[in-house]
């Protein structure tokens, strides 16, 4: 397995070997699916759309509906305007969504199609909407694409129509699973606070089996809600990379104050999330949540010896692995390698913030580790080859490294293509942290059982 990965590093500048990121449009497509009655549309040649739909369908095991402008060589030479106009007409005539959310691809970006002008010049049926986001894949990653489409929702739809802000919070959950979105909504509801979550793929990409196929499942943020985000008192952006841009835009556009927090993975980040809601809305944290928190901490204390001192490698999307790093640190583990494929800054904004944030967490814990943004799994594997770890946490692609190096592996993040429960069960909130504890604990203990001699094989651990 991965036999050609050498231990010795060579300087590489020719690109990426075994990526830990993918391209913008899939993130935009995922975000757009989080609008109720929305059909994502990929403006480019049809291969991109096909790839993105396949990948989403594999991760969620759900239909991922989207259309494409089906560029041919002619469109690449003369521009894709005519294709997009035809597509808009056909999409509303045949698939009848309320919203069509257009994103670009490398091709239409390189050509330089001006999407908003094309949309403005096209007749859209009464009561229907076309929104768009530019998602050039030669910048950022799928996380950037998610962020850009979420920004598109704000720029097209959010409006401040009231003199005074409403007692409601906007929550941008970031590129997380529907199960995580549900959990974040549950926490907010338990706090007794009205919320608008956008995008919200719960009820869309985790829709139930009913014996009936519906093109647009029940879930997703409604257009009226998206408009109303401009009237909210606060926007909580969960995750710097996937969510903060849209929150900041909303602040500029509609004067809704924005706070950016970590994806609430683990005790600390969940505490911070609840505290932000508590202080902003003057609402006490209910006993039910205090109890959940107490249970989580109880388990952490009771089982700390399963985790303490274990060396961990973590890779994936920056918002998720920032939360994961903080959580494993709170268990006394040592996240010695933390790597994302996404660049560690925002497009046009400051760079290196990912590395800085993780490095300061490690510093505080007195751990020497390696942190890398815009990295690849080839590099991560080399690090592991040089100094092994006890556990690997990441998306499905990690299984090859785990097998090559014979290390326990826990799947968290996107995509997970070889196991099935991840879209449903959260990793966020106190409950999500319990689930992570179970996943990590089981991986470590199953390994200990596997490797134990008969005489050391224990009933109670």
């Amino acid at each position: 397995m991965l036999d050609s990965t050498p231990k010795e590093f060579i300087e590489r500048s020719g690109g990426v070997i075994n990526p830990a990121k993918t391209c913008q449009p899939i993130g935009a497509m995922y975000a757009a699916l989080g609008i109720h009655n929305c059909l994502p549309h990929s403006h480019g040649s049809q291969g991109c759309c096909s790839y993105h739909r396949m990948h989403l369908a594999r991760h969620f095991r759900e239909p991922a509906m989207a259309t494409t402008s089906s560029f041919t060589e002619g469109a690449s030479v003369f521009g894709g305007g005519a294709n997009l106009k035809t597509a808009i007409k056909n999409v509303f005539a045949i698939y009848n969504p309320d919203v069509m959310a257009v994103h670009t691809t490398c091709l239409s970006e390189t050509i330089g199609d001006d999407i908003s002008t094309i949309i403005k010049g096209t007749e859209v049926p009464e009561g229907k909407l076309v929104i768009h986001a530019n998602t050039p894949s030669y910048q950022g990653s799928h996380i950037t694409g998610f962020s850009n489409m979420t920004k598109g929702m704000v720029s097209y739809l959010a409006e401040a129509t009231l003199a005074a802000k409403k007692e409601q919070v906007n929550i941008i959950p970031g590129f997380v699973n529907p199960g995580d979105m549900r959990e974040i909504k549950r926490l907010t509801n338990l706090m007794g606070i009205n919320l608008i979550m956008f995008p919200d793929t719960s009820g869309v990409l985790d829709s139930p089996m009913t014996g009936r196929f519906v093109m647009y499942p029940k879930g997703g943020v409604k257009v009226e809600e998206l408009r109303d985000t401009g009237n909210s008192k606060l926007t909580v952006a969960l995750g710097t990379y996937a969510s903060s841009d849209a929150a900041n835009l909303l602040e500029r556009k509609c004067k809704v104050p924005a706070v950016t927090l970590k994806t609430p993975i683990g005790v600390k980040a969940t505490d911070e999330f609840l505290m932000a809601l508590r202080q902003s809305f003057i609402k006490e944290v209910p006993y039910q949540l205090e109890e959940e928190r107490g249970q989580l901490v109880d388990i952490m204390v009771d089982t700390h010896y399963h985790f303490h001192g274990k060396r961990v490698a973590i890779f994936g999307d920056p918002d998720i692995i920032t939360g994961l790093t903080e959580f494993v640190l709170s268990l006394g583990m040592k996240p010695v390698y933390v790597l994302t494929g996404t660049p560690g800054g925002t497009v046009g904004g400051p760079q290196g913030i990912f590395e800085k944030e993780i490095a300061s967490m490690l510093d505080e814990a007195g751990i020497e580790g390696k942190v890398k943004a815009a990295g690849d799994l080839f590099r991560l594997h080399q690090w592991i080859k040089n100094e092994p770890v006890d556990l690997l946490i990441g998306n499905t692609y990690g299984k090859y490294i785990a097998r090559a190096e014979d290390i326990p592996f826990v799947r968290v993040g996107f995509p997970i293509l070889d196991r099935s429960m991840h879209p449903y069960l959260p990793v966020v909130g106190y409950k999500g942290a319990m689930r992570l504890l179970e996943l990590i604990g089981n991986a470590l203990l199953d390994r200990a059982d596997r490797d134990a001699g008969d005489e050391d094989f224990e009933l109670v651990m």
Partner: protein
Amino acid sequence: MAVDEKVLEEILNSYPAKVKRTRKKHILLRDSSLDRQEIEANTRTIPGIMTNRGCAFAGCKGVVLGPIKDMVHIVHGPIGCAYYSWLTRRNKAIPEEPGKNYLTYCVSTDMQESDIVFGGEKKLARMIDEVVEIFKPNAITISATCPVGLIGDDIQAVARAARQKHGLSITAYNCEGYKGVSQSAGHHIANNGLLEWIVGQGDWEEPPGKYTINMLGEYNIGGDSWEVERVLKELGYHVQATLTGNGSYEDIKNAHVAELNLVQCHRSINYIADMLEKKYGTPWLKVNFIGIRATCESLRNMALYFGDEDLIRRTEEVIARELAEIEPQLEPYRKICAGKTTFCFVGGSRGHHYQGLYEEIGIQTTLAGYEFAHRDDYEGREVIPDIKPDADSKNIPELHVVPDERRYRPKLSRERTEELKDKIPLSNYQGMNITMKDGSLIVDDMNHYETEEFIRTLKPDIFSSGIKDKYVPHKMGLPSKQLHNYDYSGPYAGFRGAVNFARDISMSFATPTWNFIDPPWKSRPLLEGTIEKPSQEGEA
């Protein structure tokens, strides 16, 4: 309910007029009384239609080049295209030289904005250097993605320079995603490159043994080619090269020595088959190792081609033995599947190939079609001269091949060729249409709307296609089978593969999980009880 012209018309009436006009030409109701039924295929998908089609890059790197295991396949472009074509197709491989299997590696130049603006050739050249240093592969391919052609990167020049620098086979494929109208363009581009630069580069002049063959258009999904080779080897065939499942550069470069080329997937590889015939005088035989009857027939045709009595006899023996082994295993599955119907909509050949196997377990195909085939895959190769090139097909270069001065050697005499052509599909494919039952539907580039409508009207018992439309029928309570990647199972080819297929299809019917779709409270009233008769006492 069957679909007739009237029902079809009603379904198509929901389309805008222009769409309707176009789509109508891609749909046929099979009628064998007609001399010829023409279908439109390999033409543009209408923008905004939810197609299953992919792009030229997917056909070139994803389908044809990607499975070659001892080559490193570099993707020149932004990250996505390389990422999505990494390990997602289930083309299995075992390295021949230890460590020389690069299928688990995804190598991309990961173009950034500055590369788009200033050009990415230098970065590509650096990537090649790094790949040579790290992997020491036997050969390297470079596939272009959408923006590369537009910004004018000359990947052919970069490959040429790298070939000289490293003394390795380093070849480039201009398979930008906008070329042609589907994956098909990419198959063609990859076929051209393999023939021009790789096949024949080896120095063998003679086949290494008796009955040396190549297997073309077999991608070893789920281990298919291993199951086929098990039988072929036993019969004494030597498979020189498989294009391209479990294939290797080392084998392919000597593929010119074969005495016969087998064509499994006609769509994706017929160009190479054709060019090998022109260049080396080696005929090709259309085979189909999906389905029991088709497998037997393919084996018999091969034996007939070589015309060796002993081979013919042994072929019958092996067939008899294999059948005796699998027939009893199939019985219980046939009981479950009998009388059911299916749709069979796959890429370029499986839409046809799987119909026979389905039939053998008792399932009729009521609708079939291809995602990216050409008219010849439907109507047979005799229509090829009638296919008019259009703007989209014209931009795929045709490779003009001439007989190789040294190596051209007709493998059969003219008389023998004619004699065989009457008996076996030698250098010929008759297409899917003639094998389909009257009244069944043939749909080219079927889209989501049509999928939904045809399921509603024809009510198949199982749907077979790919991952993009797998979960749509599931939501309707209908089993669905991925025939691109076999739902992570396989092999389905050959004799034992048929049993696996029957087992999996039966499982999708037999699983108790379907029984829980309706919650009990939907069929039972909330309040239950008997209404008591008014008491009699008052009357007394």
